[in-house]
């Protein structure tokens, strides 16, 4: 285990066993890292790490289902999920698109948010929102796009 220590892994395994009451889908959009330098082309510096981390997370619970999507060969799927950058991880209950994305490697402090989101997606009413908030959201007249800029430190 490269990212998670044995202590972290066993802690998370216990938490997930307790919290995840339904399947959670992790869909990692990535591209192969060739090691070949192409001038003007941005290489994905964290794609390999993201895949490693997602594999480690998916191994922590039978409720977590990881699908790795290579955007270089599955462009249509990436477009369908609105993914324009790699790595991007979509998190949702089952195989549904809940509109939740993590763009970039969710490590450091961001890993905590990632785990919390995963746990929320894996439990009924896991959003933990107040009834007033849910009423207001149900009445939204238009779509809302929320971007949260973060750093790992």
């Amino acid at each position, binding site marked *: 285990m490269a990212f998670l220590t044995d202590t972290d892994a066993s802690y998370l395994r216990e938490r997930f066993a307790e919290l995840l009451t339904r399947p959670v889908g992790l869909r990692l959009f990535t591209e192969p890292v060739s090691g070949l330098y192409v001038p003007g082309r941005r290489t994905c*510096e*964290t794609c390999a790490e993201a895949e490693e981390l997602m594999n480690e997370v998916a191994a922590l619970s039978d409720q977590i289902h990881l699908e790795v999507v290579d955007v270089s060969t599955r462009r249509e799927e990436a477009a369908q999920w609105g993914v324009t*950058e790699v790595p991007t991880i979509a998190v949702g*209950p089952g195989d549904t698109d*809940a*509109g*939740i*994305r*993590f*763009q*970039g*490697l*969710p490590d450091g402090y*961001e890993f905590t*948010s*990632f785990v919390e989101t995963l746990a*929320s*997606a894996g439990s009924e009413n*896991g*959003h933990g*929102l*107040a009834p*007033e*908030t*849910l009423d*207001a*959201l*149900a009445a*939204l*007249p*238009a*779509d*809302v*796009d*929320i*971007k*949260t*800029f*973060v*750093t*790992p430190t």
Partner: protein
Amino acid sequence: MALASPRVRSTSVEAQEFPELARRYEVSAVPKIVLNERVEFMGAVPEPMFLEAVLAAVSEGDGAGAAEIQEIEPAAEG
């Protein structure tokens, strides 16, 4: 909120990995939250205030929200 409503999408962007996006949204400190390219604020806020920002982002007119939430001009591309 994205889990609770099909109208809400939420993307967490790692600012160091995507500097072009961070520049476009004038991210100078994190966490910075931008809603519908109209409303922005810094840091974690209580749920009612976050909801106010969401409602401001979809409101017609000037979208005035809580005092801590300020309107932004859509930033130029690039």
